[in-house]
């Protein structure tokens, strides 16, 4: 960080004093050592210290902070648990990092209407745990659900392994209260299944903290299924596993979860979780069905037949809950498992039309050789969301830049085959340049106009999610010259 000029220091001191005046003792952090834990989110290659971190305990305090920042024209970055993987909660050097972690109360559970009203800092899994006594659960289950907060889930429109059947965060929200940059509260949605006017609930979901700060969330709950079964199938070719997925869907079955892993991911997960995965397989499919006692066994027979017909080399149905959980443990720990294979890994998040999977995996494999970096693939096969994990060593000069360039090419490939640069992790800081590949200038301008309708001064999470046209133009010019970013060692953000 540059040292602030003396004048700025005085201003900063006065501003911090003003923050302290509207917050409880100890709720404003401004010493470098206190700021350090907030310098990055789950994408730790981007780090930056904010001017101050604030930890409000009430909605009124959040409003007061926003009013002050608005008045003083100070940028605000909201943060939940900081588990995001796209740098969305990366602080602004001249801004406030607004942590919602202390707003962590479950305010009300309505088992009759199957709703839970919670504060934004409540952890995703804590909701399901709190409502289990009523035979209910909250369906979206990102892999980080033990730590990630519901406010962050709303900001990112988080998914999980059950998306194909139960949808994303946006499908499981009833109502939101947001604080705008000028500190006003707005209620989006309502107690009914819809609300008058524009669908602002949908617009806010996945807006990455650029439009407002989520201060209360009412989520929809589902009855716990009466019956859950999972089958694990191994294949000697990735293409066969991909075809089996299409056949299951074509048979009119929507699995609760349908996951694919490639060889390197299988081996890493097995070494880590001892889930009983076949380590010699080229790909495995995990297919979970849920529903009534009458329905699931019937459909499971169909699925096993399809897997056999698709050339599965082995098929195992979990016989007990323990075995079922072990199958899932392997999948859910795939990221840390792969993390043991190399000092660092870079998790990508593109979505592709499912039938393009064999092409895309072949291209990734070719790129892996070009860049000299290994890659493990974990795939939400049901909904086409691909997570290539690029292995590298940040201590080797140039490897991080190579991993980023490799990742960038994978995302461009996703767009080429008709998919998207981010399925569930968000754009944040990480994919800001790929937004120039995904969208034309007219769409980006429309995004900026939407942003201005909520936040005309551009104070909420500035510089994230939507690139400026200028940036895209410069990037385009560089691409023309070299096909790759020039001067990768320069700070570009």
């Amino acid at each position, binding site marked *: 960080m540059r040292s602030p000029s003396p004048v700025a220091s005085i201003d900063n001191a006065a501003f911090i004093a003003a923050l302290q005046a509207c917050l409880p003792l100890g709720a404003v952090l401004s010493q470098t050592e206190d700021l350090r834990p907030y310098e990055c989110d789950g994408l730790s290659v981007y780090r930056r210290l904010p001017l101050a971190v604030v930890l409000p305990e009430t909605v009124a305090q959040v409003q007061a902070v926003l009013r002050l920042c608005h008045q003083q024209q100070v940028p605000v970055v909201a943060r939940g648990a900081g588990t995001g993987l796209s740098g969305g909660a990366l602080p602004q050097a001249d801004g406030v990092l607004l942590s919602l972690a202390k707003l962590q109360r479950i305010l009300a559970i309505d088992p*009759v*209407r199957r709703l839970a009203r919670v504060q934004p800092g409540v952890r995703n899994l804590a909701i399901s745990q709190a409502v289990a006594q009523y*035979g*209910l659960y909250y369906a979206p289950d990102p892999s980080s659900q033990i730590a990630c907060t519901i406010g962050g889930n709303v900001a*990112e429109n988080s998914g999980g392994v059950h*998306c194909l059947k139960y949808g994303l965060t*946006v499908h499981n929200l009833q109502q939101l209260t947001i604080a705008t940059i000028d500190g006003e509260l*707005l*209620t989006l949605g309502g*107690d*009914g*299944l*819809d609300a*008058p*006017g*524009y*669908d*602002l609930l*949908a*617009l806010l*979901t*996945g*807006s990455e903290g650029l*439009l407002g700060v989520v201060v209360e969330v009412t989520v929809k709950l589902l009855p*716990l299924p*009466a019956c859950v079964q999972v089958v694990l199938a191994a294949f000697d070719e990735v293409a066969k596993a991909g075809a089996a997925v*299409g*056949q299951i*869907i*074509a048979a*009119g*079955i*929507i699995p609760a979860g349908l996951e694919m892993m490639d060889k390197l991911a299988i081996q890493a997960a097995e070494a880590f979780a001892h889930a009983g995965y076949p380590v010699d397989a080229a790909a495995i499919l995990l297919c979970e069905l849920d*529903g*009534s006692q*009458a*329905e699931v066994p*019937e459909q499971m027979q169909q699925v096993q037949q399809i897997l056999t017909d698709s050339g599965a080399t082995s098929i195992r149905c979990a016989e007990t809950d323990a075995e079922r959980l072990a199958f899932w443990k392997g999948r859910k720990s795939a990221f840390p498992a792969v993390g043991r294979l190399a000092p660092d890994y870079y998790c990508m998040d593109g*979505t*592709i*039309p*499912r*039938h393009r999977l064999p092409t895309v995996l072949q291209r990734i494999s070719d790129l892996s050789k070009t860049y000299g970096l290994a890659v493990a693939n974990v795939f939400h096969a049901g*909904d*086409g*969301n691909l997570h290539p994990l690029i292995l590298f060593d940040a201590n080797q000069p140039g490897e991080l830049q190579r991993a980023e360039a490799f990742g960038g090419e994978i995302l461009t490939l996703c767009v080429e085959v*008709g*998919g*998207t*640069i*981010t*399925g569930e992790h968000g754009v944040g800081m990480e994919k800001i340049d790929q*937004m120039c590949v995904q969208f034309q200038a*007219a*769409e980006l301008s*429309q995004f900026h*106009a*939407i942003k*201005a309708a909520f936040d005309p001064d551009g104070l909420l999470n500035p510089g994230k*999610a939507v690139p400026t046209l200028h940036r895209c133009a410069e990037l385009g010019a560089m691409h023309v010259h070299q096909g790759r970013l020039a001067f990768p060692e320069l700070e570009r953000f």
Partner: protein
Amino acid sequence: MSQDLTASLQAQVQQAAADRRPLRIVGSDSKAFYGCAGHGDPLAVTDHRGIIHYAPTELVITARAGTPLREIETALAAEQQMLAFEPPYFGPGATLGGTIAAHCSGPRRAYVGAARDFVLGTQLINGQGEVLHFGGEVMKNVAGYDVSRLMAGALGTLGVLLSVSLKVLPHPPAEITLVQTVSDTAALDQLHRWSALPLPVSASCYVDNQLWIRLSGTAGACAAAQALIGGEQVETGQAFWHNLKEQQHPFFEPTLPLWRLSLASNAPPLPLPGRWLYEWGGALRWLHSNASADEIRTHAQRAGGHATLFRGGPRDAVFQPLSPGLWALHRRLKQAFDPHGILNPGRLYPNL
């Protein structure tokens, strides 16, 4: 029939923007009765039509906005798939664009989601005559703001829809309809008791002291749920749900103005004069009444929801008024998409 009129529609919007001349977007006019009156020169979109891409194993269909809904549902039925939000047509020529713009969802809505829940992507023309593409054909996509879903229910005030990509679902292998006679409060109680259990309920309706339930799933799943829910199985179920969806059930015979109340599903029966029909597990309530708009809206708001003057009555204040903060935001969003105010002005709210 398939025809791409993008260039022509874009030229018309650009000209209207240059002239500051309002446009009234017209499909088949099957929903002309809905929303506020609006004004402007007609912009005909029905000839911009045709299914662009349908991939049954990807669970996605993309079609131009003027495509008849019937053409889409016929194509899906051939693959044993469906639009799960079960859109009402309200007229033989209903188009995809009108369905999304008016945000029409049918009996299955409470159990699988509304039209907006199935929107994956859109192509549209904004009020400056720019052709924009948001979202796409994949299930998970968080690149940029979710403009596609924002189009659902905007009644054409933010953009002229050119094409829409929708997630589709397999048609359930079996469906049965059960009917039983109960009081209104008992019906609401039962609906909530069942909704807390993992049952394959796919539609519900309470009218004339009778509670109608539809079960969808495998034959075994329907039979198991039937044993728990009880009631008499009726063979005319399909016709019942169709007539309900299309408002051809005798309840909907036009008498007094028809109000649509969207409420907390367990709100007790409201003390408003008139005839009632409940859907969506109690969350959607239709009311024929000559009570004043203020009285109906006040009761709807107390029950956590809002009221829409669906058919009949004056067409200048159809939707529940918004809070000052939300209204200001609506005005700014309209400005962001349509700075000259030429797209369906006044159709959603006067002065918007």
